[in-house]
């Protein structure tokens, strides 16, 4: 199969996908209600889409094409409200977060869809361990070459995204000591990690053709990269975010991506280089493990600094662009959280410290998702 052409899209347009957990209201374990939720959600007239995910306790919602993060928030809120209504009717709850803290992967069921069955056959137990929940942010690029340039520039900020969105400290009932343990599950897939260093669409096409010739991949869907081009949408798709606990935070994260992309496209602040990736995996690990307390190694200078400081520095650098895309208030919220060293992983640990019962933490997280629980 050849690489499809890169479609036209409005520069800096946004699209957000959120993978969400469906849990029962008895012991707050994952519950296989995806099919029922899809059937009920089909009755609502909503922007974007609601689709199944790999296992039957997951559901994915997505916005349509948005111009700003406030539009993202408007659409996500609308879908969230419908989800909550359907969940109430089915006596289940919808929750954010990158992992379910105590679900047992072997109890999961693959959603009955040809592609998921095919992936399950190929990946075996990994497909059930893929019951993890992420946020994907699409940002529109004016053309294919600028998409690849933006993709590789954005790679330097992957640790920022991970630390800001981290919400998966618990796996199989244990504190992993990671803020984002979810990405460790993604790493098990053979075609995960960083995208190849190709700065033009022609170079990328050569790479893609070589890969398809090996028979290892058939389409772009087979790549599980942290950021990948999405030619059919005319976007790049950032996939390292854990699903946050609220749609407000999901929209704020998309505001940060949009402001960065605006900076890259309008100012061309630096040229990406293959050597950027020398520290890529280390920075990524640091962000997963320590969240906002991570150390960040600047790929250009080799300087070590607190990731928290580097995020604040970037936010200062992109201030003008944030204003231009109406993202200032979202960035202000994120900055506030950074200043008090807070992210969703921290919130989950605080609740668990208080409650000593992960199921109760999930119940409270479900309250946050529907907008009825204390924020911190």
């Amino acid at each position, binding site marked *: 199969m050849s690489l499809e052409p890169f479609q036209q899209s409005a520069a800096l347009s946004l699209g957000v996908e959120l993978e969400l957990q469906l849990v029962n209201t008895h012991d707050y374990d994952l519950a*296989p209600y995806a099919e029922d939720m899809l*059937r009920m959600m089909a009755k609502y007239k909503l922007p974007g889409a609601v689709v199944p995910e790999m296992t039957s306790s997951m559901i994915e919602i997505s916005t349509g094409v948005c111009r700003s993060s406030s539009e993202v928030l408007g659409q996500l809120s609308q879908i969230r409200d419908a989800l909550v209504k359907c969940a109430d009717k089915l*006596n289940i709850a919808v929750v954010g977060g990158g992992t379910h803290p105590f679900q047992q992967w072997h109890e999961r069921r693959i959603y009955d869809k040809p592609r998921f069955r095919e992936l399950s056959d190929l990946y075996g137990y990994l497909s059930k361990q893929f019951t993890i929940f992420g946020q994907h942010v699409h940002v529109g690029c004016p053309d294919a070459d600028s998409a690849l340039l933006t993709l590789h520039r954005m790679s330097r900020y992957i640790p920022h995204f991970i630390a800001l969105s981290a919400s998966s400290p618990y796996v199989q009932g244990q504190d992993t000591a990671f803020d984002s343990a979810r990405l460790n599950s993604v790493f098990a897939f053979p075609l995960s990690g960083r995208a190849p260093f190709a700065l033009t669409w022609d170079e990328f096409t050569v790479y893609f053709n070589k890969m398809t010739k090996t028979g290892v991949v058939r389409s772009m869907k087979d790549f599980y990269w942290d950021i990948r081009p999405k030619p059919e949408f005319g976007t790049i798709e950032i996939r390292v975010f854990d699903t946050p606990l609220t749609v407000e935070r999901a929209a704020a994260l998309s505001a940060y991506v949009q402001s960065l992309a605006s900076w890259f496209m309008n100012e061309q602040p630096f040229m990406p280089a293959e050597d950027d990736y020398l520290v890529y995996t280390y920075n990524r690990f640091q962000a997963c493990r320590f969240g906002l307390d991570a150390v960040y190694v600047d790929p250009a200078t080799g300087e070590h600094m607190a990731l928290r400081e580097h995020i604040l520095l970037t936010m200062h650098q992109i201030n003008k662009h944030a204003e231009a895309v109406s993202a200032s208030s979202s960035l202000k919220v994120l900055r506030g959280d950074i200043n008090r060293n807070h992210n969703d992983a921290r919130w989950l640990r605080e609740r668990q410290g208080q409650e000593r*019962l992960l199921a109760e933490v999930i119940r409270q997280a479900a309250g946050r998702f529907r907008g009825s629980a204390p924020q911190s």
Partner: protein
Amino acid sequence: MNEIMAIWAQWLKPSAGLPTVQWSILLALAAAAGHLVQRYLGLPKVLGYSVVGAFAGLAGFTGAVWPLQGIGLFLVELGVAVVLFEAGGRIPLRWFRHNPMVLVQSLLESFGTLALVFWVLRLLDVPQAVAEPLALVTMAASPAVLMRVVMDTRASGPMTERAMVLSTLSTLYALTLVSAQAGLMDRPHIGMMDTLYPIAVVLGLSVVVGGILALALRSALRVMSPNSENTSILLLALIAVGTALAAHFGGSAPLAALLGGMLLKHLNPRPWAWPRQLGTASSLLTMLMFVLVSVVAAQADWNKSVVTLVLALVAARALAKILGVAFGNAGSGASWKQALWVGCAMSPMSSIALLLVSQFVAASPSQGPMIAGIALPAILLMEMLGAVIATVAIHRAGESSKPWAPVLLGSTLGDGHES
């Protein structure tokens, strides 16, 4: 069998008495049969327990006498109370505010069953005084059997949850109505108040006992972790106290436990983590309950007319439950296919039905034996067949986490893993 026991009793002087030895051996056989039935036929363990109990009953095992009384009655009541407390705790009252159709569905299937079974039995010339109690007993589906089947198949999903909730609600109605009706048996009717007053008394007293149970547990949960083994023991002990006291005050012990579970879930919406901790103690209690029910139910007299009546009753009940669930399905959030399987999964009858019959037998020496003559074979049949139907329904609805892999049916996938 009794001769063997008599010979045995002459030379064996066990410290805890011969009945303890007999029951221990019976339970050991039931445990083994349950395992083998699941391992080699892919059927629920409860079927193995029931088969062993039924054989013992048919062979004249005297360890349990009918009508139930004393420690046997208490054990069944306690087993039912534990199951119903947990089943009640799965019903958040707020759900009915968001989805009142579930309540409609429940009322339709329960009272539809009452009406259809009564009509069919009257058609077969069963006297009204017998048909009415039998119809009331058949309202109750068995959350106990369903819960065991769910554990065996490691099932979860909308159909399973709905079947559990509807079974529990049908039990709630049946317990209330039967307790009240039993009090009125062999008494002349005067008016509407004569019917309503006992219902109010049974329900009121059960609510009080259930409320005290719920408040005690809520207080305990403020300082104790639901994950703690001690909390599980506390829960069992409090249910045992409630069981012993509820009937004494004129309420219904299982009803009190069921309402206690519902009230606790309402007062304390935090997750229920203890059922996993209840573990083996609760499993032993429920296994004992299933064996006891089969032993007792197998003591019924079987003849051609009883068989006809039992089959008619079972068929009418199944039809009414399926139709009731289907008629109330529109707008309830479930698909038609799910509604069909929910109706099927509600076919088991077991310990609760036996307790209800027991109440009628105790209340009416004249009608009681006739009611039990039809009810006991029906209970035995539907304890076993119902468990199989529920298993098939769960598998067909795609809600079992465990593949149906019985060794005898040619698959090698069975891992023999105990749930």
